[in-house]
């Protein structure tokens, strides 16, 4: 529905809330900044079903080639085989807790990896079926609900834990998605990069928390879409963290670094993440947190509002 020039948002998912007008947010330990990382394990099928939607020009590979595009598929697969371990090792070395979005086909084809992530105390969140099967408004509500439920059930079965969080494949939603996620028992969603604090979403099926990521320093957005240089990405991360830490003294902030193992897990890129984290962890009073820790703290903070 096109906007009708009336007060507030042009959709029903949340209300407008300017940050300076909010009750100052505090984290449980009083830290100004919560820091975490969201790693995406995205699966691209070599032959998606004919009715599936992919991004027009997905990242990775060289240029869009006729199928089978070995270069694209294998570039992405690098993350699952090699890059993921560099990311985990680097984040662990700097004590940054890890949340991992795992899509269903990753959980299905890489059971070893799902086990491994759990032994490393990662939080696993839902990520749809595959990056080659986007959730879009072109599908029926019924098939969208099925996709959400099936992928969450599968990840629960594979990991033994019901995922509390969700990041849609390639961050693509339909206008129904928040409601369907709430109906599926999801507590928080990472699809809306529009804030520096969590906020409440309301849907006919119940409330959700939106946990915004930081699109401009998302590795794919910065390094692949914008082709920022590695040095400039490093500076972006460090200066964003510094500023959020400073601004967080009056109202706390969170920073989730969005990282893709096929991209930042490459040998020449991992060193830059390592350098950026070495700077950030020098800040005093960082709350190292996973997605669900931040969401729980936010929920407790907002209780009774």
């Amino acid at each position, binding site marked *: 529905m096109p906007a009708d020039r009336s007060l507030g948002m042009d959709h029903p998912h949340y209300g407008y809330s300017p940050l300076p007008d909010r009750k100052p947010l505090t984290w449980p330990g009083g830290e100004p900044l919560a820091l975490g990382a969201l790693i995406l394990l995205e*699966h*691209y*099928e*070599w*032959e998606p079903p004919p009715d599936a939607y992919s991004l027009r020009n997905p990242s990775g*590979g*060289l240029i869009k*080639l*006729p*199928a*089978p595009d*070995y*270069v694209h*598929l*294998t*570039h*992405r*697969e*690098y993350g*699952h*085989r*090699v890059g*993921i*371990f*560099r990311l985990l090792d680097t984040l662990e070395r700097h004590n940054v807790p890890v949340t991992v979005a795992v899509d269903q*086909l990753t959980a299905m*084809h*890489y*059971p*070893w*990896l799902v086990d*491994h992530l759990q032994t490393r105390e990662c939080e696993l969140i839902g990520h749809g079926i595959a990056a080659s099967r986007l959730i879009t408004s072109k599908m029926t509500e019924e098939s969208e609900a099925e996709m959400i439920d099936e992928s969450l059930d599968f990840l629960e079965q594979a990991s033994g834990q019901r995922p509390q969080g969700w990041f849609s494949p390639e961050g693509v939603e339909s206008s129904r998605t928040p409601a369907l996620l709430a109906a599926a028992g999801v507590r928080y969603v990472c699809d809306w990069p529009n804030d520096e604090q969590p906020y409440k979403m309301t849907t006919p099926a119940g409330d959700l928390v939106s946990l915004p990521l930081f699109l401009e320093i998302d590795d794919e957005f910065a390094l692949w879409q914008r*082709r920022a*240089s*590695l040095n400039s990405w490093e500076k972006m991360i460090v200066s964003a963290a510094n500023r959020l830490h400073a601004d967080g003294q009056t109202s706390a902030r969170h920073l989730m670094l969005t990282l893709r193992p096929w991209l930042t897990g*490459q*040998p*020449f*890129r*991992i*060193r*830059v993440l390592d350098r950026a984290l070495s700077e950030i962890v020098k800040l005093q009073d960082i709350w190292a947190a996973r997605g669900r820790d931040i969401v729980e703290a936010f929920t407790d903070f907002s209780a009774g509002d």
Partner: protein
Amino acid sequence: MPLPPHRVDYLPMADRPNISWPNEARVALWIAPNVEHYEYLPPRDPNRNPWPRSPHPDVQGYSHRDYGNRVGFWRMLDVLDQYDVKCTASTNLAVFDHYPDIGTAMADRGWEIMSHGIYNTRYLSSLTEEEERNFYLECVETLRRHTGQQLRGMLGPAVSNTIRTPDLMADAGLTYHADWLHDDQPIPIQVDNGRLVSVPYSIELNDVPVFLHHHDTADFVEMVKAQFDTLYEEGASSGRVMALALHPYLMGMPHRIEGLEEILEYLLGHDLVWQATASEIADHFIEHHYEEFVQHSKTINGMRNAG
């Protein structure tokens, strides 16, 4: 699996047998100049347009690349000679017909010639099985006729492939396929008959995407050094492969060539580097590690395969 089906079992870097290269090298480094010919008026391919900028011919795009064969190749060759590099030249094999001077220069230096198809403007993706079988026979025959070399591997022409490609390569007697970017080590590729391994190439440590995306020589040099530093550190526990992909029409330019000197000076200045050709890497892997990798993949994926 996500990859063209049933070709590769999952084998996480965190849990696999160690690779040991000759002389305790940590990194097997292969250097791949792409020696290419893009046709002035290529045949029409229903799935891919080699010159999308304008109706054919695109004299600007054509000349940019033609520069590589007239000038850039020779400037690069001086630098490669200076560092005594044993290249694996990713070659459009028609280069031997069009430019025998280049063919002779490569063959005389004992470079390995890796097939990069016949022309960079003729893709595998639209070929029938029979056409693709004949394509490999033609590649093998062309290389033998011009150099006496036995063809050992391929990077698909303009990285094009079909789902049959690995099977047909192995049937034609090829040993390695460079189009798999999924790993820092050689990996067994399952084929109908015989054996085939991937020797990882790179589209990141590759002058084409780097320079076409407004990065410049200093960025490329920094990337290559950083890539090497990580692999060299990790290679202390298990050998790694690093590919350096170059194009004479880009790296052979006057404003870039010093970058190549700096790169080679740095990489080859380390002791524990095995500067090898792709087939030397493939052969060593097959002889010493192939079987162990296959067996370990079965353990990793045992649960799933049993289910």
